[in-house]
């Protein structure tokens, strides 16, 4: 990753360094283990630290009380969190912030409350464009699914067919059912039965596709940003699973030799490295061009889809290969390799599966390949 760092600016370098407070490079994963299979599965104290480090305001403008940083910075941070398997739901929380009323936003940026978006109804899709959850006459009805770490939220920002609405977790008519995930976290299913909620902006929210109107267009862009940050998180976790594997190949002996001398394992490792480097190139190309104001929105989406499709596949490929290259030891829960595989299984489909993004990439690409 050193080559990459060289060309990053000072802000990003400092941001990466600051991440060590929560997720030191190659640091112990005991905190992560201890939080597995608990509810809410992450730590409010760490959330306060995250707030203290200013990460929640990363993407907000300075007028909104934020740092006004771009997706390059956001992805650098997400990559650091990924290598540390950090379970705190920073990526989804960042989606909500721009849409909150100022007072609530200030609380959220300070880490006092957690607002998570509830936007998804179908598995694997970064949509749907027309939710079947409704927000009419001030009340929400319907269901939202796959809300990561939902049990830790105080409010939900709900994407309804009529627009965005804000609802406290403990509001009347709101019920939350959680299902544990392989990484020890959970996904929430939120059901709304005439739950009273607040519209999130003064803009009239007309029924229609999610991307119609400036607020909803901004929300769609926020989802894309979350997809890109998720790709960075996946790169971080895959990179570390690979480093763990390389260490093992360099030290483990079998048949009187370091197993890293076996050519079949060397070639497998070379292929994984190639997958990681393709992912890295794809991700930073997307992040840089996303931050370039001259990049048209369709091109941003295409680049995000390209990077997310790649990162999702690489993360599963690398973490599964890490198990194989380790042999038996990686099949024990007490060895760390499994933590990376299980996290990849859960994060990989989030904010659009590889398939979904591949399809969107094709739709947004010019019809013919340039010769």
């Amino acid at each position, binding site marked *: 990753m050193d080559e990459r760092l060289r060309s990053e600016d000072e802000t990003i370098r400092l941001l990466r360094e600051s991440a060590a407070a929560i997720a030191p490079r190659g640091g112990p994963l005991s905190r992560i283990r201890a939080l597995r299979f608990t509810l809410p599965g992450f730590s409010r104290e760490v959330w306060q630290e995250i707030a203290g480090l200013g990460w929640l305001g990363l993407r907000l403008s300075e007028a909104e009380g934020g740092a006004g940083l771009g997706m390059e910075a956001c992805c650098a941070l997400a990559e650091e969190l990924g290598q540390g398997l950090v379970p705190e739901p920073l990526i989804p929380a960042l989606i909500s912030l721009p849409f909150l009323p100022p007072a609530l936003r200030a609380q959220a940026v300070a880490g006092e409350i957690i607002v998570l978006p509830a936007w998804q109804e179908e598995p694997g899709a970064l949509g749907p464009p027309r939710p079947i959850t409704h927000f009419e006459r001030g009340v929400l009805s319907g269901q939202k699914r796959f809300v990561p770490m939902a049990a830790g939220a105080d409010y939900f920002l709900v994407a309804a067919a009529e627009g965005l609405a804000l609802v406290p977790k403990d509001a009347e008519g709101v019920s939350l059912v959680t299902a544990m995930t392989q990484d020890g976290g959970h*996904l929430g299913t939120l059901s709304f039965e005439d739950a009273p909620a607040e519209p999130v902006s003064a803009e009239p929210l007309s029924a229609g596709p999610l991307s119609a109107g400036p607020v909803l267009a901004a929300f769609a862009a926020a989802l894309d940003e979350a997809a890109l940050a998720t790709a960075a998180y996946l790169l971080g976790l895959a990179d570390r699973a690979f480093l763990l594997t390389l260490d093992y190949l360099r030290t483990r002996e079998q048949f009187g030799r370091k197993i890293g001398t076996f050519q079949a394992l060397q070639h497998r490792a070379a292929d994984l490295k190639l997958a990681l480097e393709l992912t890295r190139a794809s991700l930073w190309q997307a992040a840089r061009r996303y931050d370039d104001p001259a990049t048209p929105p369709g091109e941003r989406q295409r680049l995000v889809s390209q990077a997310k499709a790649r990162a999702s596949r690489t993360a599963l490929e690398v973490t599964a290969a890490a198990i194989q290259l380790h042999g038996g030891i990686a099949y024990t829960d007490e060895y760390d390799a499994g933590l990376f595989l299980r996290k990849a299984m859960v994060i990989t489909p989030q904010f659009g599966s590889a398939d979904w993004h591949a399809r969107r990439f094709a739709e947004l690409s010019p019809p013919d390949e340039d010769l």
Partner: protein
Amino acid sequence: MSDAPVIPPRAPDYNPLDDEAFREVVREFLAENYPPHLRFPPHRLHWAECKEWYFILAEKGWIAPGWPRQWGGMGLSPAKQIILIEEFERFGAARLPDHGIVMVGPLLLRYGTDAQRRFFLPRILSGEHIWCQGYSEPNAGSDLAALRTEAVREGEAWVITGQKIWTTLAQDANWMFLLARTDKTAKKQEGISFFLVPMTSPGIRVRPIVNLELHDEFCEVFLDQVRVPLDHLVGEINQGWSMAKALLGFERIFLGSPRQAANALARLKALADHLGLADDPHFQRRYTEFRLDLADHRALYAVHVARLREGEALGAEVSMLKVHQSELFQRITAYMLEIAAEYGGLLEPIGGNRALHPGGLFIQSRPVSIYGGTNEIQRNIIAKNVLDLPG
């Protein structure tokens, strides 16, 4: 050894039945006797969970299909044993703690003393002795030549010190058969002997290991100056390695059985139905490719089973079956994860339906290319022993 039964068989001799008739006998027996709540268990069962089935089989005289009838076994031919196992698998019968049956019995019958046979075999049949296997060690995963556990003779005892790993269900066993080094000066596979060790011996400590399925199927076993009498050594001293190799029976073919892949493919179809993908052209294409792979695997498996039935020994080709079946199983579960999206990350089956558990099956499919010799080692074997490539 005379043919007069030492332990009278409880079951009739099924060898004269024709294959289909025998298959029917097995099916009926399972349908009538198998505890329904134990069908298709998601994990390897502990002794406490499956002993009722062990006792049913013991009572029926079916617990040791391969043992000779005069030692209380069914005395089945390999062909009939294959049918028995196929039907048990198809029915979803749980795998029992069968190391006593599959490994210790044949070991003692072939290499043991008459006294050892008379003492141990009835206790295996009755379920009084439950055995675990001490082959693997932390630094000798696929490389048994690197075995470090040592047995030193002190007067009338062998004193064993070392560490074993990947010992299946050691926490449930009261006996362990293990390999230990008895001649440190000998090279590689030489100088290793075979011992029978009570798990209650002072100096033995068992530590269960939770695996990626979050199940404590495996254990580490620590042996610190464990003393066993001289007659707990089996066969000749320093011949343990050759005995262990000779015990690798025709059961190895089941590592290449199509069952896991077939099961996964049926679940893939169920998942696609659940997700509304069954008519998607891309799904159909992938599904067809998997079916072709499975159909050809079945054809190749059938070739090897037919050879076994004709009394041929299994060669190194069996590694091909293992490689193909394990990787097909893994490719299917990886594709399940791909289409399942968020469902693939769930810890429990979708909607509580055990047939819809892509994440669980994906995890279960990971070690099949590791256990029984990694697929890398299987490919080495194919290259050297089947293709005769230089070493």
